[in-house]
């Protein structure tokens, strides 16, 4: 089964067309790397895949379900890590995770496991607003993978992380089917998508670093 199938997907915000004519397919277990300058439509694509945005045209299938009609079936099966950590600043890391665990009906044992894995076990009961940027990002990663999602949608998952923290987080977010937005031109997935001004610049299995760099020129 294909994890993601997009056919001519497009989306506009009012007068501005953010994304148009995206066609691609990602097999199960593969990683799709997405590149593009700021405002090229990367975040819009990610939000459409997470069923947070309704595509205005084209057909989108995620995990075999048509969006937006079957969005309810996709929800809970994707792990979404966007720019925004989606954490309440006045709650502790543990309370935030407990809230999401209740929504996703995940046993609390998983929370301790994850807090240990991202190296936050000692700070778990401090409010998130006392955290540094890297710690917030680590908590957000824990939140995104809390319910063991079938598909991970990640927007620069390693942003703000030092090499040590990145090494902690890496195993949590690799292995399964992924869509990863990155600004590191050396990052490689099984399939690489380049976006420019909301349109597909390339979508291939073999790309060179120069191809990627050309997007930002």
């Amino acid at each position: 089964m294909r994890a993601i199938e997009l056919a001519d997907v497009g989306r506009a915000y009012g007068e501005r067309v953010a994304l148009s004519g995206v066609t691609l397919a990602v097999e199960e277990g593969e990683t799709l790397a997405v590149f593009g300058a700021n405002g090229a439509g990367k975040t819009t694509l990610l939000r459409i895949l997470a069923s947070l945005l309704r595509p205005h045209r084209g057909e989108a299938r995620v995990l075999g379900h048509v969006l937006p009609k079957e969005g309810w079936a996709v929800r809970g099966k994707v792990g979404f890590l966007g720019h925004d950590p989606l954490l309440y600043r006045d709650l502790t890391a543990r309370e935030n995770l407990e809230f999401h665990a209740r929504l996703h009906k995940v046993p609390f044992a998983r929370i301790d496991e994850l807090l240990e894995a991202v190296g936050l076990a000692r700070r778990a009961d401090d409010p998130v607003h006392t955290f540094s940027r890297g710690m917030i990002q680590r908590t957000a990663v824990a939140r995104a993978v809390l319910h063991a999602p079938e598909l991970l949608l990640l927007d620069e998952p390693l942003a703000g992380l030092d090499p040590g923290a990145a090494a902690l987080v890496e195993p949590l977010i690799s292995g399964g089917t992924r869509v990863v937005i990155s600004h590191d031109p050396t990052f490689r997935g099984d399939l690489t998508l380049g976006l420019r001004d909301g349109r597909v610049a390339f979508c291939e299995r073999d790309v060179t670093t120069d191809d990627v760099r050309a997007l930002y020129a």
Partner: protein
Amino acid sequence: MFGRGLKTLSLITVALIVGAFAMVFFYAPNDADQGFIQKIFYLHVPLAIVALFGFVAGGVYGIKYLRTGDRLHDLRSYVAIHLSLILAVGALVTGSIWARGSWGVWWTWDEPTLVSFLIVFLLYACYQPLRFSIEDPERQARYAAVFAIIAGAFVPLNFMAVRMAESLVHPRVLSTTGGSMPSDMRITFLVSTVAMACLFITLWKYELASKHATFRLRALKRRLADGEDAWTPNPRRSAAPTL
């Protein structure tokens, strides 16, 4: 497509309005209590009733929009509420004039129709600002529909509450529509109401046709200008729906 039958409808409306006003002044007798001033009744109450139904119709089209996602329903809802607002202003002003003539004051809290209309008017006056403060056209349509449905349900509830709250001390004509109103007055009132309803429908269709034509024209212009697909949205932000 909205213009179909508009001409016939307009002619019927003109005939009905002229007929209704002629009946008001030449057929209906002067009211026994209030005398000539009661002639305002044939204007004020139909305005109020039609505006009321217009608001509720806006809510019904809001429901249709949410069910189907068809932007034309949003347009219908918007135009119905927009026109009803204008009629509500008319109902308020004529009611106020009636109060001045009858009781010597510009405003009276003893006339539930008038008080309810003020409240309903205040609520619907927020409709345009609400639309205007939402940028994304799709969200604008959706939220406007939700507002139209809430407000549409609010209209009858509000009337009930206000009617119960006001002590009915003044001689009120509307309460006599059922029984003791002379039949020639009742017929005049009915004709006036039908005429007003026809006027509303005519203007509604007229504005729909106008708005629809404007959108299609703009879409055509955009296509000619830069060869873009027709789905590129309208570059001007406004409270009015876009297609």
